[in-house]
């Protein structure tokens, strides 16, 4: 087995560096989304954060790019670019591309009444005015039914490729070959309302809306437990109010109404804890035989 995939070879030394005014450096790893591009963006972000250069205020890894905020009064832009380019060279040269992360199980009530009701309110102007977002998603992917779409949705794990848009919202990329990726166009015109914890999908990305608000992703269900807890009441939020980190691996577990309500009670009385386990993610293995590798990763949850 080669330590480097063709995909990560292709991305060596090709990042594009450009400025967002006098306080932001933007580095585009690739125009297209891929596991390899995301891995490189996250690796560069980790190295840059670890270096803790004075004057860097934010390092924000995204799907296939990263954004760095800096104070040009402290750190000269040219110096920052040189440091970032040196890190790119280091990341490209890494022998074995691995990431110490965790796998997390997220219980989801698919086809729930909350997103169904909201979806019904925004039907006019939708690509499928006479159906649901799930019907549209199934149709867009050539699947026979919403049920089949749902089963594909939780059938393989997802990588958190970016956290943002609003506080704590994870973008997730399914860890399957490109031809198996679920792709669903976004709403033609964004909604003004989305229930909190909606599991959404736009393009090739899944997301979980951390707060109620506007949104353009199709809605498939609702996560049973919070992912953003400003009061830091639950165990998983003791250290920080936001649950997800880039690099987290997510597996969705479908729950019915009874179980959803049981989890809600646990959240209320403060006893809910996410099922999770540490894993070391190996990019080359993941790219070589995704389905076998996904099974291996999922096994980690069984020992919890």
């Amino acid at each position, binding site marked *: 087995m080669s330590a480097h995939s063709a995909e990560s070879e292709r991305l060596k030394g090709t990042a594009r560096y450009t400025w967002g005014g006098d306080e*932001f450096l933007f580095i585009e790893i690739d125009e297209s989304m891929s596991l390899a591009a995301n891995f490189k963006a996250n690796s560069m972000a980790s190295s840059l954060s670890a270096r803790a250069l004075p004057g860097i205020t934010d390092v924000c890894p995204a799907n296939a790019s990263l954004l760095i905020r800096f104070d040009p009064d402290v750190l000269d832009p040219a110096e920052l670019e040189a440091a970032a380019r040196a890190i790119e060279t280091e990341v490209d040269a890494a022998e074995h591309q691995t990431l110490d992360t965790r796998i997390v199980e997220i219980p989801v009530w698919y086809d729930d009444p909350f997103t169904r009701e909201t979806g019904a309110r925004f039907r006019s102007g939708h690509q499928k005015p006479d159906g649901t977002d799930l019907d549209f998603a199934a149709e867009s992917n050539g699947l026979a039914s919403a049920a089949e779409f749902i089963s594909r949705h939780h059938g393989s794990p997802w990588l958190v490729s970016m956290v943002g848009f609003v506080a704590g919202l994870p973008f997730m990329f399914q860890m399957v070959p490109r031809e198996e990726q679920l792709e669903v166009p976004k709403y033609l015109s964004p909604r003004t309302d989305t229930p909190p914890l909606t599991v959404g999908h736009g393009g090739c990305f899944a997301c979980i809306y951390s707060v109620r608000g506007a949104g353009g992703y199709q809605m498939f269900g609702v996560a049973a437990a919070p992912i953003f807890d400003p009061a830091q009441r639950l165990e998983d939020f003791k250290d920080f109010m936001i649950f997800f980190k880039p690099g987290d691996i997510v597996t969705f577990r479908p729950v019915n109404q009874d179980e959803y309500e049981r989890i809600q009670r646990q959240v209320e009385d403060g006893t809910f804890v996410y099922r999770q386990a540490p894993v070391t993610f190996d990019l080359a293995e993941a790219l070589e035989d995704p389905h076998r590798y996904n099974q291996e990763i999922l096994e980690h949850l069984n020992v919890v």
Partner: protein
Amino acid sequence: MSFEILEPGLSTTVQDLGRLGYYNVGIPQGGSMDQWSAELANAVVGNTAAEAVLECTYLGPRFRTTEAAVIAISGAPVDVKVNGENREQWTRLELAAGDEVSFGFLQSGTRFYIAVRGGIDVPLVLGSRSTYSLGSLGGFKGRKLEAGDIVPVGQAPATATAGLDGIDTAMRPIFTRDQDIRVVCGLYDHRLTEAGLDTLLSSTWTLTPVADRTGLRYAGPAIEWKPRQQPFGAGSDPSNIVDAGYAVGSIQIPGGKEPIALHRDAVSGGGYAMVATVISADMDLLARNAPGTKTRFLAVTMDEALSARAELKAVRSRLWGK
């Protein structure tokens, strides 16, 4: 001591210098939209630049102070009243316990600021007192003020100075409906046609009413994107990219229509290509512009942006006497 809010105004929030360092998880910097105005009000009452103030949008609050207090009003021009009597902006106002403060309509601009000696004393959340309404985080209970709120005011440290005796007219911000905004082109500007970029930089844009702490939307001519086979994951429109981090101040043009400039409560990322970024020195100008403002985006180099930043820093140093 505290302020009792009798009427909240349209959108009155607690703000300060902002909350840097959490943009990587989607928490915006926040802070006073018009930083310079907020800073001037703080200087007048003898605070440092870091004390939290009240940011009032269009329609101000009506409130009563429970104890004697020293306040100053800065920002957009507005009639200030204490117990129904007219008072001045840009100067110290000494309030007695029970005094009631209210405001008339804005004469121009969008936001004015109320600083109080000792600062608005809500708890620090992730290092800042700024309100992030969308995340119900920081400020007063994570939201804009409501009637009946009791807003705590801090104790000024013994070392605090008396503050400035008013602000020279030359130092006060200008509120205009004809605005030049300097931008640095970059990010995804190569995705626009030459004509498209030229349209952005040579047209006069009109600020629409869709302008808030998140961003400002402008009306004007259509802007041309280069057609292309869209990359995997980027979405179908030529203005779409694989979702990426958004620079604060960056300008995106969804569908080639109505550019949006992101401001201090920016969403941290999304799938629209950015083509230019407002320079840090001009962010306050954007914050002061009311809908209808005629705006030109002028391209400058990074060096010019850094010079403008240095000039602003020098003015700030003069204000604080260091």
